[in-house]
């Protein structure tokens, strides 16, 4: 699954500019203009601007941004559903931009699958035929692809719905079909484009749990697009925040909340309960001269909230350690302050 250099998706300097003279904008000073000015000057819209990132095999990588930030365009560029204007993309070592149509189809059939916001199911086919569609276009014989489709339906919890029609299912079940379809070809990478945005909040929570479970069970590399910060923090090992086509910050949930790169990100993460995202590393301080150093030791990556029981049991401050080295201490007051949401 992993390529030789241990990177599942590698994107370098990716641009997508919509408009008649897109390639002329690139490389000219216009490319640095902000979107409104660019549009007024050239009539072009830069949806993705100089984006670079890499995703490790098995990682859940989240791209988060508001609508119009270019995240959906970005994910479509990865398999060239939208032709990128410039940049390099490699998926599992394969140079996507240089691929011939046949190689590209091969990539889409076997390596990368996509899940869509509006499901994109085929209403004239039974659920099992929807799930088997990807295998069907590969030319897999009917009996084999149906067998595989039923396995996958069991995996996503749709046992017994194989013969139903998509319009007989609820929204959450439809997206399970979408997930199953993407998983059926056993791809290395799953691209999920706002898969749960069209669902009710309760169902959305179930489906998020489902993704966590599937990720644990099948271990696919996932690139997850969302406009919902809570969803991003919940699912993403690393998160890229996009604004106006560019990535403004890329990091773990902790890094985004603890050290926002700019006002925009800070504004975004303002309402996130810090004690549930940040670890002790962010609030520990060097011990005062009169403080006891015989309290319980906790690793630095412990989430603040999880340190509460230890703090309750011990009168002495908690020692925060990393690789057997003392980083600092945290006492009850520090923990309470961060639980109450006081800024640092």
């Amino acid at each position, binding site marked *: 699954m992993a390529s030789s250099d241990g990177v599942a998706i590698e994107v370098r300097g990716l641009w997508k500019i919509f408009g008649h003279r897109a390639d002329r904008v690139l490389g000219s000073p216009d490319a640095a203009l902000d979107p409104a000015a660019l549009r007024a000057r050239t009539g072009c819209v830069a949806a993705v601007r100089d984006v670079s990132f890499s995703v490790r095999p098995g990682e859940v990588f989240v791209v988060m941004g508001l609508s119009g930030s270019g995240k959906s365009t970005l994910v479509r560029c990865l398999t060239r559903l939208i032709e990128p204007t410039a940049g390099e993309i490699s998926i599992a070592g394969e140079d996507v931009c240089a691929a011939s149509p046949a190689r590209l*189809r091969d990539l889409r059939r076997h390596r990368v699958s996509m899940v*869509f916001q509006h*499901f994109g199911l085929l209403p*004239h086919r039974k659920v099992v035929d929807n799930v088997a569609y*990807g295998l069907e276009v590969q030319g897999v014989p009917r009996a084999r692809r149906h067998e595989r489709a039923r396995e996958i339906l069991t995996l996503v919890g749709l046992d017994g719905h194989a013969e139903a029609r998509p319009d007989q299912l609820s929204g959450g079940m439809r997206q399970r079909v979408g997930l199953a379809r993407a998983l059926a070809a056993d791809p290395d990478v799953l691209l999920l484009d706002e898969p749960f945005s069209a669902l009710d909040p309760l169902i959305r929570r179930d489906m998020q749990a489902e993704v966590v479970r599937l990720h644990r069970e099948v271990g696919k590399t996932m690139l997850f697009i969302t406009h919902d910060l809570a969803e991003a923090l919940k699912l993403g090992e690393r998160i890229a925040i996009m604004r106006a086509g560019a990535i403004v910050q890329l990091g773990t949930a902790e890094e985004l909340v603890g050290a926002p790169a700019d006002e925009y990100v800070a504004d975004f993460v303002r309402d996130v309960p810090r004690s549930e995202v940040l670890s002790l590393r962010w609030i520990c301080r060097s011990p005062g001269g009169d403080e006891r150093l015989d309290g319980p030791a906790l690793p630095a990556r412990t989430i603040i909230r999880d340190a509460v029981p230890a703090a309750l049991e011990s009168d002495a401050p908690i020692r925060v350690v990393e690789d057997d080295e003392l980083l600092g201490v945290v006492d009850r007051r520090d923990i309470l302050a961060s639980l109450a949401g006081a800024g640092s």
Partner: protein
Amino acid sequence: MTTSQASPAPPAQAAPGAPPGSAGSAGSAGSASSAGLPRWALPLAGAAVAVAAYVAFRGTATLPHDDDAAPFQLVNDLRAWVDANRNRSPLFLFFVNYVRLFVGGLYDVFHLVLSLPGWAGLTGVAAGLGWLTGGRRIGLTAALGFGSFGVLGLWEASVATLALVLTAVLLSLLIGLPLGVWAGRSPRLRRLLAPVLDVMQIMPTFAYLAPMVLFFQIGPASAAVATMIYSIPPAIRITALAIEQVSASAVEASTSLGATRWQTLRKVQLPMARATIGLAVNQTIMMALSMVVIAALIAAPGLGSDIIRGLTRANVGLMLPAGVAIVVMAVVLDRITMSAATRAPYETAGRTRWIVAGALAVGGVALGRALPAEFPQEWVLRFAGPVNEAVAWAKFSWYGFTDAVRNLTTEALLNPLQSVLTGSPWWLVSAVVLAVAWRTGGPRPAAVAVGCLLATAPLGLWQHTMETLTTVLVAVALTLIAGLLLGIAAARSPRFAAVQRPLLDAAQTMPAFVYLLPALALFGATRFTAIFASVIYAIPPVVRLVEDGIRNVSPAAVEAALSCGSTDRQLLWKVRLPLARRAILLAANQGIVMTLAMVVVGGLVGAGGLGYDVVSGFSQRSDFGMGFAAGVATVLLGIMLDRITQGADERNSTPGSNRMTTRKKRIA
């Protein structure tokens, strides 16, 4: 007009020092109001100038009609040349003659296949087909319908008509469906085709005929080609729309799974577009049915010849059976194709249905073998005599009423308007057209409209164009008044709508010239007959568009108006009608195009003008040139009227989609 109505900048608020024209996009009306003039001042002034010019220049610069104008002679010479070189010129030898042979051969094959099983066999097959697609009800409809052809004494003619329709439809679909699919996937081709299809759809039926004669002579082959050209636009347009409408996310999903373009087309786009493509087939058949009758003018075999003969001789008894047979055929084919198209996407006919359908077909054919091929004469109902008596009686006893209506319209509307139009200098008429089109559609449509109008002058048909225009204007006025009233009534009263809707549905399934029948029976062969027929013909779509437009006004806006305490009347005038404006303008556009088509056909029953020229072009060889030119002139007139009223159609939406939608609505 849009902007001036949407933001009628009250004069009081316009700053006195504001430079004229500062209203910007508001156009001429807007700048007039910003200068302190009311909105109606400019049109009124324009009208006053036009009237003054008419009074001053009446009778000058008119272009009276001449039967031997140079363009007519030119076309006559062309025909003589074509006739002389039909078997010499390579264009004919290697292309046109082969098309003629192929299409003619196709017709012969269809005719033979349909004739072979005999009347009982064909009826059985039709019933089986109906049963298969729509169950017992459609099967019974098909059986009764086909049986009635025999009872009407028109079995042979009906089979010939059916063969002609099938030939034309097959050719239309063979070309139209692939082209439509291609257009559905390629926006570029769609843009390229849209104006061509637009013009094809506003072309009155008559205009197709003369060129066909020139190339393919008269007979089934040229009739089939004319019918094909007439019925191909819906095949292309609706198919393209069907493919285009397929959910983009399903197509994207298919691509993302590595499907080739062909796989996506076959497994996603075509299956998901199936119902709408069925609609395209249905519309193609309906168009073909109305055209094959008119194609009888160029010697198409079948029911049309009876109808044309009846029309030209004002003999209702002669054409009534053929008219009924055509309507029945339209209903049967409509029901069968519609039930095939609207079946749920994944439902397939059950086994019992197949068995019943097969049994019906086989039984019918077996019966056809046993029975004589000829439909039994003793079962034929002959009612030409009684019908003619009834018509005579109706004419006689309602004479007071029908005569009064006819004379009132003729004396009060037709004659004065016609003398104004034919008596005005050509430049004045053109100027008025330019002004009106500019105001409704802007500079480009105005230029096209005037160009088309002026082009009729060098054709030598200015005066006849004015005569036809007169008839169209009167008919359109009556159509719009009646259509608006009925549409508003239906939108306001669900009960009225429930009664009216099936009538409209039925009316829209019928081929156009059927409406000439009652008109002819009541009013004889006069100009008013054509007006009456075209009003009946054009009312259904107008009513429907108006009703839908008013009904579809956003419920939120209606609720808001109600919560402000509007009365019913205020709600209608201040909210519903203004918000439905686009639909109403579209209704006007549709009404005008349909009216023109019918008025031209009315040339058969004494409407005079261009339609009469076309008809006489087919009956007298020496008039062929004039008929040909008149066909061209009707097209020009159609484009002109369409451009004038197109303001609603093109400015606010994707071009060309509306006409499609209306056609689709017909059956939806």
